[in-house]
């Protein structure tokens, strides 16, 4: 017989503590869809994505019913579109429209891969794609875009950083009637993982198989509740142990769901991304975990250390629970998606500078941060450069997803709704980095890159 305590624990995790599978993401290679004519290329893309993913949503629902575990999102990631654009030429927005249509037709929540990898420089199609991003994101509903502008191996492409500062601003401007939502679907990466199942940064890397299933698990509420049950006299080693044990259980569930989905769809299983991804739901907050560890408010001195404990323990617990761990794996700190973070910003406890420090020890970067609408594009480029530098030097993924709130200033709010949440416009340092940004060129790869 199964242990009654175990059964009730699982049920409590799901019903009371918001445990869920955050996403099943199907990665699909589009390299074989490439054609010299963009219209033919789009047609092939539609057919291939539809053929591979038509049963994805149905399969996710079946698994949800079989195990009684909510699977919140079903998504698709595809080969970076810039790779196709290089040989097809033409108006890149056509690709975005095709992706949007097929996402709608198969019923997924998002499709990621309107992307370019330009960390060392631009190849044909890359610049055109970058410049088309604002139009692609304002015309479509489901498409997500990401651009990799740096890596530990290659340094940081500062020309791309400068362009992306402007692209983010323009994307927000073109979607200003819809809470600047376009910018919430655009991520600028350093060291982007090729198998990340989470949006908006998911794309299907060129080194991946033809079609693959990746799973992203969640569960900040479960971790917070596990720590809350501990005595106040438990030391931090014991706290780390509890996080590890909880992460293990969460990841096992992700492994089970991934294996099952891959079997049902006849597609190889890629990785489990064991990330603690908060949602606007009450209690499903990473900030609350940090506060449960012992901070008066997220953002207080000690926040970076608490986040470092959390991020590391999540990985240690998860890594044994899955045969293949990948993606971003760690703790996410998207401000608008996390009730606790929003509250900490509103109370003045959490600033953008503190968030930047936190990104040095967690799995992502400055994520879902609303900045004043009149922020200069060079300042946005400066934010990107800082984050990319942290990622490059520490051999980790960092990203920037900031949303310039057009027409709004610090203290106002943007309301996206759904998983993207809502949040206050944060103050940023307005001193200009323009001269440095406009120098352009490439920041050389750091000494850490010479590992051979």
């Amino acid at each position: 017989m199964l242990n009654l305590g175990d059964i009730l624990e699982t049920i409590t995790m799901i019903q009371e503590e918001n445990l869920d599978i955050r996403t099943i993401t199907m990665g699909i290679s589009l390299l074989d869809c490439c054609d010299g004519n963009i219209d033919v290329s789009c047609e092939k893309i539609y057919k291939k994505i539809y053929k591979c993913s038509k049963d994805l949503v149905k399969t996710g629902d079946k698994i949800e019913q079989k195990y009684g575990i909510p699977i919140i999102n079903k998504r698709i990631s595809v080969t970076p579109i810039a790779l196709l654009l290089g040989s097809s030429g033409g108006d890149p927005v056509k690709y975005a429209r095709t992706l949007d249509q097929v996402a709608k037709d198969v019923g997924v929540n998002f499709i990621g891969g309107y992307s370019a990898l330009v960390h060392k420089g631009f190849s044909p199609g890359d610049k055109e794609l970058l410049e088309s991003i604002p139009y692609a994101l304002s015309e479509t509903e489901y498409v997500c875009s990401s651009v990799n502008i740096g890596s530990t191996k290659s340094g940081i492409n500062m020309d791309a950083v400068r362009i992306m500062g402007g692209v983010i601003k323009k994307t927000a401007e073109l979607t200003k009637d819809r809470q600047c939502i376009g910018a919430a679907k655009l991520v600028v990466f350093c060291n982007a993982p090729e198998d990340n199942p989470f949006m908006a940064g998911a794309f299907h890397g060129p080194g991946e198989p033809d079609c693959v299933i990746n799973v992203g698990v969640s569960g900040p509420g479960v971790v917070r509740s596990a720590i809350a049950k501990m005595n106040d006299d438990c030391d931090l080693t014991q706290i780390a142990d509890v996080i590890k044990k909880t992460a293990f259980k969460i990841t096992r569930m992700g492994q089970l769901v991934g294996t099952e989905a891959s079997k049902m769809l006849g597609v190889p299983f890629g990785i489990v991304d064991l990330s603690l991804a908060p949602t606007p739901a009450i209690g499903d907050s990473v900030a609350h975990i940090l506060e449960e560890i012992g901070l008066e408010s997220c953002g207080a001195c000690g926040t970076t250390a608490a986040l470092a404990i959390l991020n590391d323990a999540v990985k240690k617990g998860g890594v044994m629970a899955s045969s293949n761990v990948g993606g971003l794996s760690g703790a996410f700190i998207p401000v608008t998606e996390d009730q606790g973070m929003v509250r900490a910003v509103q109370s003045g406890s959490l600033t953008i500078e503190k968030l930047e420090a936190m990104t040095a020890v967690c799995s992502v970067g400055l994520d879902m941060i609303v900045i004043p609408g009149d922020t200069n594009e060079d300042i946005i480029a400066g934010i990107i450069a800082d984050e990319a530098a942290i990622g490059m030097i520490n051999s980790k993924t960092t990203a920037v997803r900031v949303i310039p709130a057009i027409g709004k200033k610090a203290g106002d709010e943007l309301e996206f709704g759904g998983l993207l949440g809502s949040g206050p416009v944060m103050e940023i340092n307005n001193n200009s980095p323009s001269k440095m940004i406009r120098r352009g060129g490439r920041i050389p790869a750091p000494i850490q890159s010479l590992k051979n």
Partner: protein
Amino acid sequence: MRAVVSVIGKDMVGILAKVSTTVANANANVVEVTQSVLQEFFVMVMLIDISELNCELAELRQQLEEKVEGMKIQVMHEDIFKSMHRI
């Protein structure tokens, strides 16, 4: 193949009877039942064999929800508990 049926809620007459009848109608065999009442709260966990089940698990859950209204009911394949709590 086995599944776990859990029923949690306010105690009343006949819960176990209704649940086992519904399970029997779905052609599932009851393997084990653990049940207790804690401060008026009824907690039951039933392990059932579903290899000969004549409907989907989701349908069984729906039927159970109709039979014993107002209770929190879960029907989950046993593999989720095995994978989460055993190495």
